[in-house]
């Protein structure tokens, strides 16, 4: 029941918010809804029992004669992703308070609607319902980026929409195809989809459809071309939603829906599909080094980090998959943290160009500290959240094939290079005309960053709870594969 409340509450809140005229009320109501949602997800966590799959189940026939039922539940992976969503959305809403936004009620209504869609994606165990929620997130994302976006938003957001929608349609064909190959009476239930009996050719096609759909969403090189532009043009809240949460939908899809259904393709092709994200890691890292625009920089680092997660998940190794889940959480937290810092910098200096900045640390020591901790999380320094996941991912890749681990290991070096170099140029050195009057963070501004930093260190120092949840999530998938 809690799972259903987690989905229905933001849906109702989104509809309600849409009609709130007063701007202050709209803001506070949105934040209250998001915080309530967080509270409920904590309650779900408390009820969560670690040694059992698919809990907190809610089931209701929706289109019984078409084998579709509203089946929502939680396993470790759903729990992690739900917690990530409910943790980040209040932060995203809170940090947007300082932005100048017109049509406030619609804006927050769309964010909350997107939250409902995300939680639906992460908790549905029925293929068609999963698809419906998957698409439901696209509409708010499109309108947030398009309506409140910056330059060239019309062209860029249409590209974003067309790209992701085409990918989703491929997935739709694959899901319906799988459905028609389940035993009679057909069903979209994940258990039946897992238990398909496709022949190798059919498996390959289904695999390709899924892979392209999820690769576009993540995005994995070479399906990433929509992403940097969209991150840049979207308002900060939109970039955070896209980078922090929507990209996780793609990885989640890989782990929950693609791998258990068509894993034989992966073992048969001998790691061919792992090479694709590996190329992406190197490619995106090299581009990130040369970026001058901060948001675009974060976009490319994100492609590199997400590529590593995808590569690890595709090895089918249980440690790597566990690492992938942890890293999905860490990446979501870190990228939102980075976007918040960029937002603060832009609010003060009116620019996001690295070459125009410098010496901020002298003026704003608090910002510098927060920035450094989040940055080290991204670089995967031991005792930060990035380390736990990245270590497991590389370990899994190494067990698969040492050369893959060697290439993927470059990401550690690369990320240290581009992150620290960026930090040096933005924060260190002498102040210039642009950063001369830089004011340090106020108390209000520090709240979201503090929340993020707590998690960066918590996951880094004591990852126990997260590891157990991830272990639970991996358990079922490994069970299917064996």
């Amino acid at each position, binding site marked *: 029941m809690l799972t259903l409340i987690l989905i229905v509450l933001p849906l109702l809140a989104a509809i309600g918010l849409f009609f709130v005229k007063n701007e202050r009320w709209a803001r506070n109501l949105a934040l209250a809804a998001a915080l309530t949602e967080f509270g409920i997800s904590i309650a779900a966590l408390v009820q969560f029992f670690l040694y059992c799959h698919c809990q907190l189940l809610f089931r209701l026939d929706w289109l019984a004669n078409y084998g579709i039922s509203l089946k929502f539940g939680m396993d470790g992976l759903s729990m992690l992703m739900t917690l990530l969503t409910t943790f980040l959305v209040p932060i995203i809403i809170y940090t947007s308070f300082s932005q100048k936004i017109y049509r406030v009620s619609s804006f927050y209504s769309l964010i909350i609607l997107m939250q409902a869609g995300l939680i639906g994606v992460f908790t549905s165990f029925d293929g068609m319902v999963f698809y419906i929620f998957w698409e439901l997130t696209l509409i708010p994302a499109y309108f947030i980026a398009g309506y409140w976006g910056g330059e060239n938003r019309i062209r860029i957001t249409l590209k974003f929409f067309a790209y992701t929608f*085409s990918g989703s349609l491929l997935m739709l064909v694959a899901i*319906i195809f799988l459905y028609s190959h389940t035993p009679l009476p057909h069903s979209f239930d994940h258990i039946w989809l897992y238990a398909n009996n496709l022949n190798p050719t059919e498996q390959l096609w289904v695999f390709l459809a899924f892979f392209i759909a999820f690769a576009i969403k993540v995005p994995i090189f070479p399906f990433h071309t929509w992403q940097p532009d969209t991150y840049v043009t979207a308002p900060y809240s939109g970039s955070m939603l896209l980078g922090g949460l929507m990209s996780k939908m793609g990885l989640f899809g890989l782990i929950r829906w693609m791998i258990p259904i068509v894993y034989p393709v992966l073992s048969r092709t001998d790691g061919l599909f792992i090479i694709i994200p590996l190329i992406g890691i190197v490619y995106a890292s090299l581009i990130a080094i040369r970026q001058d625009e901060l948001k675009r920089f974060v976009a490319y680092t994100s492609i590199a980090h997400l590529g590593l997660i995808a590569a690890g998940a595709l090895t089918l190794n249980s440690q790597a998959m566990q690492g992938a889940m942890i890293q999905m959480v860490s990446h979501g937290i870190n990228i939102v943290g980075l976007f918040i810092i960029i937002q603060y910098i832009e609010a003060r200096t009116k620019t996001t160009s690295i070459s125009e900045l410098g010496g901020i640390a002298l003026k704003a020591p608090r910002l510098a500290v927060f920035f450094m901790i989040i940055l080290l999380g991204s670089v995967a320094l031991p005792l930060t959240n990035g380390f736990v996941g990245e270590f497991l991912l590389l370990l899994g890749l190494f067990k698969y094939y040492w050369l893959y681990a060697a290439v993927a290991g470059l990401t550690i070096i690369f990320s240290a290079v581009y992150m620290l170099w960026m930090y040096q140029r933005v924060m260190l050195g002498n102040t210039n005309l642009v950063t001369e009057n830089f004011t340090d963070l106020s108390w209000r501004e520090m709240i979201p960053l503090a929340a993020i930093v707590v998690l960066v260190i918590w996951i880094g120092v004591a990852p126990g709870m997260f590891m157990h949840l991830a272990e639970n999530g991996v358990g079922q998938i490994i069970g299917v594969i064996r």
Partner: protein
Amino acid sequence: MNSIISLSVLGVLVLFLGILKKKTWLLPLILVGLLASLVMTVLHWNLNRSLFHNMLIIDNSGVAFSAVMIFSTFLIFMFAAQYYRKVVRPLDDIYAIMIFALVGAVLMSYFGNLIMLFLGIETLSIALYVLAGSHKEAITSNEATLKYFLLGSFLSGFLLFGIALIYGSSGSFDLYAIHTYVVEHIHPGLPPMFKAGLFLLIIGLAFKIAIAPFHFWAPDVYEGTPTLLTAFMATVVKTASVFAMYRFFSIAFFGIHGVWEMTIAILAGITIVIGNVTGIYQPNLKRMLAYSSISHSGYMMLAMVAFSGRTANALLFYAIAYSIATIAAFAILILVREARGNDYFGSFNGLSKNNRLEAFTLTVAMLSLTGIPPLAGFIGKYFLFAAAIEQGWLWLVIIAIAGSAVSVGYYFKPIISMYFREDQGILLKADWPFKIAILFLAILIILLGILPFLVSGLI
């Protein structure tokens, strides 16, 4: 049967009111009359009778489709007051002809005999020729009616010739008799005369539905026809023709495969590709909706090739989803044309600012036509695609899906204009019944998407 009689009586009454010059009574009478006919139609549920020696067969699928068409007409009449606001003369003739066209459409959904099919199509078409030209002063309207009449009467000839050839080989107009004949002659093979007849029949119907390559009339006629009547053409007429084709195949070829499926599948594929690709290049909403209606005919053809126990219902759901979304789009189109003089996409700029309800409704309609969950259009597409995949038409479904992806390119044009572009400043003026009607449509589109089982298990 009730609905045919009651609708005909309603049409005559409307004409009488025109003679009595009771202009203000017209629309209320029509709306009440249509609702009454709707109720009478629904009362035939589970009646399953045949009348006049199988001339008309009242079955549940016929009842359901008649009800949908009467309901669509009802919705269109809700916008008539707004559309004809500035017209002084009584409009009894136009309204009456619309109702008579609806009688033809209802006949087409009950036919059990090819003669009845032809009668229905002609009742519908002749009424439409008049309606297309009902805006006498506009040259485009004249062009539309001339084009439609010339091509339409020519293609009616094809249809009639096809019926004659089928009669010539099978010896009957009756659908069940034709079915018996087909069953007896499918091995070693149907005679060429029968096949030629079938082919001509398909062409005749394909023209009415606007399936490529017989679709060329549609954009011009749609553009020239007065907008309210275009909405009627795009929804009621299309539903009637598609269902007539479905009914013909599902009765006369019940349980027989491999005769016509490939032809229809190829036509469907071409239609989806042409409709969607050409749709992108249209400069205004009305022409775009014409191509949209063409591509949706293609999707509905999926139901013809994928016969199973559920396709009738899939088609019904699709017809409903398509009709309500299209009517909603035309309603907003009427408003925009009235306020801003034309319907180029630029005229929609900034609509979301002061006309939130109108913008919202058009957005929901466009998203539903694109097939985005959780709206009605998605569920409709899903039913059809699932039926087609189950029957092994994977390649056709892939074309259809690619078409859906392409359609984003034009369905999003008005959305982008309304929300992301700067304002033009002219406010749309809609009275409250109009607003309630479009709100009702928007809610219906969403509701059918969330609760599709309300309709999905009917027939």
